[in-house]
């Protein structure tokens, strides 16, 4: 006796992403409406631009030491942001540092993300004893504060750009594993998956056809938010004496080298710090916007 008037379609979250074209257009229009998202987007673009073309923009060679010009305050002798303790141009070093920060953030996300995603999928999709073991490992690692873990690993495997990326990745993959696993678990229960299973589609095919495409959004969101964490963590580890080592113009490094000059030459520690902050701010803004736009359900955390 009860017949329902058909519900308006499109009210619930579509399971599979709509066409690329419309999605991009939708993202763009949403970006235009969010000042934080736009700010973040511009900062990220700028960062990418600097890291790709920085070497042609930088007014000086970031590694070139000019002893007679050391510790020049900003706006002297053509050094817009001044020079450091070896007379190297800070602006040029910051531009070169942008590239390192981007490399650190992106590479770490790539490594940690790939590994964590694989673990998360294996764990969440195939379940069984493997899931138990993998999640136990994740628990173990989560039983240790991230920054301390990165520090310990970096102290053990040694400093340098490659090793700090590796340390961050080792410290960071669990987040991806956790998130991906719970997404997979949720997806497994969705009707279209159950339906596919019921019609005898092979598991692997389901994985690639249905599960993976739907993991894209949460992974992108998580990645963008994690990048900021990694950049700040790298700076912190550098500050403590590990991490990327001089003369590499990584921002964290510049900070850690410049902190001894906090009284005499404020610009050494100010500019890289601001750069880290703006970058983290931009990436966070962008990540937040991405999350709010692509996946309103995730809004909580």
């Amino acid at each position, binding site marked *: 006796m009860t017949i329902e008037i058909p519900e308006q379609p499109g009210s619930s979250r579509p399971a599979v992403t709509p066409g690329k074209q419309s999605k991009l257009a939708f993202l763009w229009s949403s970006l235009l409406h969010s000042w934080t998202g736009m700010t973040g987007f511009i900062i990220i673009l700028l960062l990418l631009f600097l890291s790709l073309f920085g070497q042609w923009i930088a007014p000086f060679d970031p590694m070139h030491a000019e002893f007679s010009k050391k510790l020049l305050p900003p706006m002297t002798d053509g050094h817009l942001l001044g020079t450091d303790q070896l007379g190297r141009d800070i602006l040029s070093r910051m531009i070169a540092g942008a590239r390192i920060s981007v490399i650190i953030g992106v590479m770490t996300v790539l490594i940690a993300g790939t590994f964590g995603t694989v673990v998360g999928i294996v764990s969440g999709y195939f379940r069984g004893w493997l899931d138990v073991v993998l999640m136990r490992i994740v628990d173990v690692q989560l039983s240790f*504060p991230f920054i301390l873990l990165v520090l310990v690993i970096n102290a053990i495997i040694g400093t340098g750009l490659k090793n700090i990326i590796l340390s961050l990745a080792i410290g960071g993959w669990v987040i991806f594993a956790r998130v991906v696993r719970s997404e997979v678990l949720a997806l497994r229960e969705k009707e279209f998956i159950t339906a596919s299973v019921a019609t005898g589609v092979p598991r692997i095919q389901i994985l690639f056809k249905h599960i993976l495409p739907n993991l894209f959004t949460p992974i992108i969101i998580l990645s963008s938010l994690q990048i900021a964490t990694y950049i700040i963590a790298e700076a912190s580890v550098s500050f403590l004496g590990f991490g990327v080592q001089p003369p590499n113009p990584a921002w964290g490094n510049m900070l850690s080298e410049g902190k001894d000059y906090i009284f005499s030459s404020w610009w050494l520690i100010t500019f890289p710090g601001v750069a880290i902050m703006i970058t983290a701010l931009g990436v966070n803004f962008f990540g937040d916007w991405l999350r709010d736009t692509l996946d309103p359900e995730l809004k909580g955390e």
Partner: protein
Amino acid sequence: MLDFVIKRVIQVGIVVLLALTVVFFLIRLSGDPTPLFLPPDAPREQIDEYRSKLGFDRPLLVQYGEFMKNAVQGDFGNSLRSKEDALGMVLQRLPATFQLAISALVLSLLISIPLGVLSAFKRNSIFDRIAVALTVIGQAIPSFWFGLLLIFIFAAQLKVLPSGGGGSIVHMILPTLTLAAYSIARFTRFTRSTMLDVLRKDFIRTAKASGVPTPRLIARYALKNSLIPIITLVALDLGTLLGGAVITEVVFSWPGIGRLLLQSLLNRDFPIVLAGVFIIALIYAVINFVADLLYAFVNPQIRVR
């Protein structure tokens, strides 16, 4: 309930043991600490002798077995540098770290929950926008940088607060603030979004429809619902606070566990590193356990099970 507790205790044990195992092998594979302690003019035979005295020349698995056997009895060996009981040294630093972490936590909660609630309630107002902007900045600012800034301003320039060291309440202000900055930002954001979520819920409408006034609605109804996710986050973040304590402790010369751990890493003083890992993993696991209990306490759906 008892089942739950027992299960969790076993789980905590496994987690801690596994953590120790991993760190043990990582550390042992990382190299040999002996040269760092002996005087630079020590001849090679002396170094070898010392190394074998410390047992670093035996097969790794034998070392591991020995270590685990002692570790489960709470014996992590003596510090290579000071020869004191490693676990004892770590435990000795623990109160200072707790003091810092807890005061930072208390400060964060006291500031962030009201701020987050207010921000959610006055959504999209100027107040909310400022609060949100501040929280994003708070999460973006590197803590050592912020700490140095505070020292520079309050200790060196204004000379109103000490630059660090353990001791009285005034010594705690700057490190607490530094350590709390991140969690204040994080908790505020989280409280705000959780609160927004809860305020959208049907049962809030029900309460409104019953004529419950707004202040009571927020203080009694919405907050209690928000509390569950907040507790989970706080528990997770207490670990972050402990981790962040390393940096804060170094910047502010705070005599805590993080500083000891860093020093030991720099010195390759492995027994202390292992004891430190043990304690931190244990604390972390215990905190999570307590959080689960608390969680059950505020969430009746779990309590009954």
